[in-house]
């Protein structure tokens, strides 16, 4: 009798599961929130440690194909493809166990088919196989963010993946542990502000006179661009879409005593960030918070196809440079930005004992 009952119960459960696919989706019962995405280098408002239960976090991104200037001094242009009009695309932040629900829109004004592959997700080529949209279409993808860390997302249309990626279509999803970040001993770490930096290796073709070529449409740039790509030598390497995007008026800012989280994504090519005059206090170079952070790093290494994280508390004022420490890539090709830091100078940490002057005999 008991066995029979168990069987009945199992059958009932099975039929409930089979018949209730549409009803019994666990994510449907959760609270849905719609945070507002902001343009890089800024990151959407978010909690670090949270008491909230897992939720469905809804985002919308619109793909924009457009010609951009990647080097203002020389007027060099690129036929870019972007998520939400920016390079990188906006950084999304959720917590472990949340569901990311993205509405991806490809307006009719675009020419190409696009999709999205989330490195944080599981299955269907990162969602790429479920999100193919032609101009004039949109789609909604939901996946469970069950691993913490910073993860790349990027466009990956079959047959022309690298071109879409190096043309600008990548960004970061940060999945925070529900109780926030921790140091190597499990003690809580807190940041006061967060910046997101996307590094892009660009492959702009030149004409027979050695001048960078300009194209009427993205597709017209395809053949020449892939030729340059195959050489594996970028013509430019830029942070956030153009040379100098994070300098001058675009410089990042901080204050002495402030702890800043730097998210650094590079969807295609290796990079090695370094903060000139500072360090990486806590670094998850491969970006995954389940691992212990490394400490006191001078330079860290982010493999192409990864988003990494560095946390630093500023101790001195001044203008810092945040660079890719292949210095040719930084200062010749463009992979450099500035952090302007206000505050009081600390003579104990550094002091100019004798200012530069003539050599004394």
């Amino acid at each position, binding site marked *: 009798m008991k066995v029979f009952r168990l069987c009945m119960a199992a059958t009932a459960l099975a039929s409930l599961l089979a018949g209730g696919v549409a009803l019994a989706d666990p994510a449907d019962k959760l609270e849905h929130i719609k945070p507002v995405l902001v343009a890089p280098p800024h990151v959407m408002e978010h909690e670090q440690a949270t008491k909230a239960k897992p939720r469905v976090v809804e985002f919308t991104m619109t793909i924009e194909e457009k010609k951009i200037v990647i080097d203002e001094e020389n007027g060099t242009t690129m036929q870019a493809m972007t998520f939400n009009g920016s390079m990188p695309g906006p950084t999304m932040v959720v917590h472990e166990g949340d569901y990311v629900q993205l509405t991806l829109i490809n307006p009719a004004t675009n*020419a*190409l*088919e696009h999709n999205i592959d989330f490195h944080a997700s599981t299955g269907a080529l990162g969602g790429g196989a479920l999100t*193919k949209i*032609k*101009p004039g279409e949109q789609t909604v993808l939901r996946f469970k963010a069950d691993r913490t860390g910073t993860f790349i997302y990027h466009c990956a*249309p*079959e*047959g*022309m993946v690298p*071109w879409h990626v190096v043309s600008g279509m990548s960004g970061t999803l940060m999945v925070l542990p529900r109780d926030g970040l921790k140091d190597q001993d499990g003690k809580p770490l807190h940041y006061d502000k967060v910046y997101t930096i996307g590094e892009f290796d660009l492959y702009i073709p030149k004409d027979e006179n050695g001048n960078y070529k300009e194209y*009427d*449409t*993205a*597709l*017209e*740039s*395809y*053949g*020449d661009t*892939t030729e340059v790509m195959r050489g594996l030598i970028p013509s430019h390497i830029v942070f956030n879409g153009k040379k100098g995007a994070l300098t001058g008026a675009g410089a990042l800012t901080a204050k002495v005593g402030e702890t800043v989280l730097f998210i650094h994504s590079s969807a295609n090519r290796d990079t090695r960030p370094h903060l000139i005059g500072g360090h990486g206090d806590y670094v998850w170079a491969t970006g995954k918070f389940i691992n212990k952070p490394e400490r006191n790093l001078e330079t860290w290494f982010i493999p192409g196809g990864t988003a990494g994280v560095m946390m630093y508390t500023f101790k001195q004022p001044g203008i810092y440079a945040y660079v890719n420490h292949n210095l040719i890539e930084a200062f010749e090709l463009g992979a450099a930005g500035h952090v302007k830091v206000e505050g009081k100078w600390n003579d104990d940490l550094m002091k100019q004992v004798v200012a530069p002057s003539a050599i004394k005999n």
Partner: protein
Amino acid sequence: MLKIVSLTALSLALLPALSMASDAGTLKTGEKLYKSACVACHSTGAANAPKLGNKQAWAPLIAKGMDEMMNVALHGKGAMPARGGTKADDATLRAAVEYMVSRAQ
């Protein structure tokens, strides 16, 4: 010389419609546009584009004739954008279609 002429005549005769005949200059113009833009999809078959040189994929399109192929080239179809995503003029687009057709025969 005579041999070349007769070969040309032969290949013309094999074309389903005389309107698809194209000279070497046109094919070169067409190849140039193909290699700058059309190649993005038609070399790999991205988004189900008929691959360059795939006779099986091209046969039904060629059978529909140049007017229909130009209609697709000008206005787009499925994932293919109007004018193949270029600002090429009609004659250059036609040359690119003729080039792709020439490679499928």
